[in-house]
């Protein structure tokens, strides 16, 4: 399947792009991260510390073990600092 993957803040800066289309057979968010990390160092750097990362599936906060089936948009970002 194909998902749109978005990156924000320092995740975007480390990976070097704001979004990309990814072909994947990953069953969960964690599987998708493992695939990305295996690609290149810049992904490994961005995903080095999952405790400092958050993920949203179709614009809803989710956990790293959430399934990807049916998901169109995955976003990775640091803890939010609004307000």
């Amino acid at each position, binding site marked *: 399947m194909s998902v749109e993957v978005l990156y924000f803040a320092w995740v975007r800066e480390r990976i070097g792009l704001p979004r990309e289309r990814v072909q994947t057979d990953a069953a969960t968010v964690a599987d998708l991260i493992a695939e990305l990390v295996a690609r290149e160092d810049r992904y490994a750097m961005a995903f080095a510390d999952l405790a400092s990362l958050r993920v*949203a599936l179709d614009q809803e906060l989710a956990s790293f073990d959430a399934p990807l089936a049916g998901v169109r948009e995955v976003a990775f970002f640091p803890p939010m*600092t*609004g307000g």
Partner: protein
Amino acid sequence: MRLSVQEAPFDLGAESQAFAAGAAGAGAVVTFTGIVRDNGGALSAMEIEHYAGMTEKAIAAIMDEAAGRWALVDALVIHRFGRLAGGEMIMMVATAAPHRADAFAAAEFLMDYLKSRAPFWKKELGPEGAAWVAAKDADEAALLRW
């Protein structure tokens, strides 16, 4: 209830006045305004990134939650993104309720959730360079009281 995610500045005076005047039946109006701190006169700037699309949804969900918990007559959230200079207003929240306890609680709740659950990221641009603002443990802990 109204929410606006915008790059343009907002007019705190006009927004506060219009909000309070339009809140029929309210006895209490609380506003909160967040401002870019100028650190000891050394004016810094801030770059606010956000997740267009999710931002509005997340804020609307937070406002619905507040409306379900407290007897609110009205609520307003305005949050800016983009580049802001020191002293500029980042965002505001307003709540109107028959009684003050509800208006205060809802405003604090909205702020606590906007801090940690709305997809905004702040980057401070100071004299020594740029740095992403780290989320504070205290902000995450603040959610536990609700």
